[in-house]
């Protein structure tokens, strides 16, 4: 609660975090099949670890054929491709529920994809209670 003068405590930080995993074609498509299999098995083990600690909320892979929807003169316009024309795209995502931001960053740093050339963004999710 943010009312100045109020002495309510409440949480200082969000507890749920969205991890957006980035990569690009040169990162993921250039991996030899054996390394790809290795990455997949490491990610499975990573997710299983988060399940066991009771921090795992969800994880999804993104299919590489996005549509972008924008405002046009006669209403929304749908086009192929990601919204931002970035060299790196979001390949998958997962959500965790953790004790602190430090813990969220610790999990992010342990994500196996990083060692294979990918990267990720850590986004706090807004709570619905105040």
């Amino acid at each position: 609660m943010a009312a100045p003068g109020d002495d309510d405590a409440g949480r200082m930080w969000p507890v749920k975090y969205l991890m957006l995993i980035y990569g690009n074609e040169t990162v993921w498509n250039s991996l030899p099949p054996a390394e790809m299999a290795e990455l997949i098995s490491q990610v499975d083990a990573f997710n299983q670890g988060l399940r066991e600690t009771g921090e795992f909320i969800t994880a999804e892979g993104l299919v590489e054929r996005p549509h972008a929807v924008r405002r046009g003169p006669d209403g929304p316009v749908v086009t192929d491709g990601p919204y931002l024309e970035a060299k790196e795209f979001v390949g998958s995502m997962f959500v965790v529920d953790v004790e602190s931001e430090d813990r969220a960053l610790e999990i992010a740093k342990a994500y196996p994809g990083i060692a294979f050339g990918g990267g990720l963004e850590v986004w706090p999710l807004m709570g619905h209670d105040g």
Partner: protein
Amino acid sequence: MTPVEDVLRTLAPRVLGALVRRHGDFARCEDAVQEALIAAAEKWAREGVPEHPLGWLTTVAARRYVDQVRGDAARERRELAALDASPRDALVAPPADAEPARDDLLELLFLCCHPALTAPSQLALTLRAVGGLTTPEIAAAFLVPEKTMGQRISRAKQTLRDAGARFELPTDTEHGPRLRVVLHVLYLVFNEGYSASAGPDLHRVDLTREALRLVRALHERLPASGETTGLLALMLLTEARGRARTGPDGVLIPLAEQDRSLWDRAAIAEATALLTHSLATLPLGPYQVQAAIAALHDEATSVETTDWPQVLALYDLLERLAPNPVVSLNRAVALGMVHGPEAGLAVVDDLDSGVLAGNHRLLAVRAHLLDQAGDRARAAALFQEAARLAGSRPEQRFLLARAAELFSPRM
């Protein structure tokens, strides 16, 4: 809470305590009690509460425990041998309700708030094992999937086992630090509920009430603990303002604008009496000081008539007893009321180089002080910036409303 839930949640720790005393295996006993509670909730809602509810629950939980152990025969051969050696009656014989059951609430609280567990695990396990809540109820209260919460609870029990945690009271030297953890966990449960009370979901368990119930029970067992008394008083004083705290659409109403006639005078009187007794006779600690600050707010008829010099003196004391940037931030507001906004702003500037750098609350306090100093334009911009970084929807709405007020010309 329905009458059945009320009975179940009160009896849950007694059934669990009895079972753990008899069998020792906390993790499995806890599962058995949970199953018994679920069975009772269904049956009692249909048929009413039986004449001896404690005996009923203990018998059913003991049977579930035995079934579990028997079901795991292959893996647990040794334990099964020991079990088969004892007559079945000895395992499931219920204690008569008339006979005073041993009270294990303290042992259970210390176990569930064991320092080897993370805070989210301590909260979850305490609510289930001591509070008698079901996993789906706890999951809904914390807005996580049931599976996540179930996993968190079983991991917590595994961690307790690995840490060699024992079902007993801590030694004299450990008692103080361990009690501080228990109080902190109950404080977090309360805050979680207090934050959620603005939400529209009436089906969520009222964590505020659960925390109050558990602290009250703890206070009954430890009447000479000043900090337990202080925490109970703090919760009562905060909850007393609950009804005035949100508007019709769940909009947060700050202390300064609350309708104080809606505050619960009986709760305030109870808390004040507890606090007066504890401050006069028991060792001082941070919860008592926080309660004393809350009492000054609750006793004042308006923001203007609040005893701000006394509030500031208590924040000074609190900062010495339990240094913490959030306390310093709140102290800056009191400082602003006593010595003018510039004095408060100087403290906020110092805090901006620490862990609160860029925090939305720090921005909101700075905006509040700038507004008091007459700098409406900068205050408005800062409220907007704070809203952008706010961690929750109601907070964001509140901060945007403050910004909008300041952007519009003063009436």
